[in-house]
């Protein structure tokens, strides 16, 4: 499984990447592989505000449905339209074109509470 070194992760198999005051969040390679072909996303609209770990949407795939959790709290400032129109983008490129939301962070410290790549690698090794 691909676990890039420049990202942080959660036990719910999401990743987060910082860009200034913004955070990009998505599903990991492990997550997309477990879900199999992704069919649709249901996401809260731009402008919604959530705390860390709150549910901001769900993903439906052939093998399972899963809730999506905020890795860091804040306001959703952008939803990736590409994955709304072609959800398979997340299967094909989970860390790149397949990002899910862009968040304006309330508290950048929350980023540091997420899992390091090594911690996440250990987690998926235990689960698979």
């Amino acid at each position, binding site marked *: 499984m691909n676990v890039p070194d420049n990202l942080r992760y959660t036990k719910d198999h999401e990743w987060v990447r910082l860009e200034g005051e913004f955070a990009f969040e998505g599903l990991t390679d492990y997550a997309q592989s477990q879900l*199999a072909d992704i069919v649709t996303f249901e996401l809260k609209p731009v402008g919604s505000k959530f705390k860390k770990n709150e549910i901001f949407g769900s993903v439906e795939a052939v093998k399972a449905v899963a809730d999506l959790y905020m890795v860091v709290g804040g306001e959703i400032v952008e939803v990736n339209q590409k994955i709304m129109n072609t959800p398979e983008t997340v299967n094909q490129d989970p860390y790149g074109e397949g990002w899910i939301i862009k968040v304006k962070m309330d508290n950048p410290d929350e980023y540091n509470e997420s899992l390091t790549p090594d911690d996440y690698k250990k987690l998926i090794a235990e689960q698979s």
Partner: protein
Amino acid sequence: MVKKTAIYDGHKKLGAKIVEFAGFLMPLQYKNGIFSEVKRVRQTVGLFDVSHMGEVEIKGKGALEFIDYITINDASQLEEYQVQYSAMCYDNGGIVDDLLVYRLPDRYLLVVNASNTDKDFEWILKNKRGEVEISNISDSITQLAIQGPVAEKVIQKLTALVLTNLDFYWSTETKVSGKDCILSRTGYTGEDGFEIYVKNESGTKLWNDVLNSGREFNIEPVGLGSRDLLRLEMKYCLYGNDIDKTTTPLEAGLSWITKLEKENFIGKEALLKQKEEGIKRKLVCFEMLEKGMPRHHYEIFVKEKKVGFVTSGNFSPSINKFIGLGYIDKPFHKSDTEIFIDIRDVKKKAVVVKAPFYKNASHK
């Protein structure tokens, strides 16, 4: 102990995602994903390793009479090399398994679901009567399924037999790719296609030769994920989802294989009684009118009343809709009835439709 098919290493080499299913390590999908594999089978041809399926051989003078007693279809109608879709029932009419019965010159072959092989074999032994010899040969057999509108062209290159002479639900014993096999024009996809049974030691060669032969038609290996979708699009029942010991063939829409006029078979009395009293629910097809994935065990409503439950559901890449099967109480089972599926506490609108979902399959 979890089992591997003879082609396991081949699957790994092709980048398969392996999952455990019915005690076997099986390919769920290969690199291009499940929807792409469904399209491949609908458009040209795909190759499945279905060696997890069980095979029970029945020989002896009393074989036909015995099979007629344990199965619900009329095995006495079978001609040599003909194949029949059938099922075994319990005394109460619940389903033990659905299966294929092959009538071969010197024996019968029952092909059963992988998840039920041991249970079925025990059931068959328990009900043994007459002069019969019963053997479970599942572990020695590799089964491949070549499915899709150009399947015949792929297999024709590998055998001297003229395949246009092999009709739907007929079989033969021949050589494919130089290997002795049972070859039948059967499948679980709705497309034209073949199933081939060979000894395990011939499995890998046959697998590779079929892939090579199919290259000009863009053949792809396809896994259990697409197999489940392809059968769902045709409303073919999956044991454990749509049928099981709590459902009867009459409820499941399998009355066409339930020959109640047969003299005697296990489950006959219960099924006759159910037919006389009338079934109370029916397995039907539905399409979602609102976006949402129906899944096994979700509840079905009409207005505020619970009228049934989902047995299978998925997104159909062939018709671009969310589809499902479920048992619905009469009279809400009728086509065009508006129903609601409780999807994670939200009731989403759906409509009962006629089978199959996919109407352009090359074999209907």
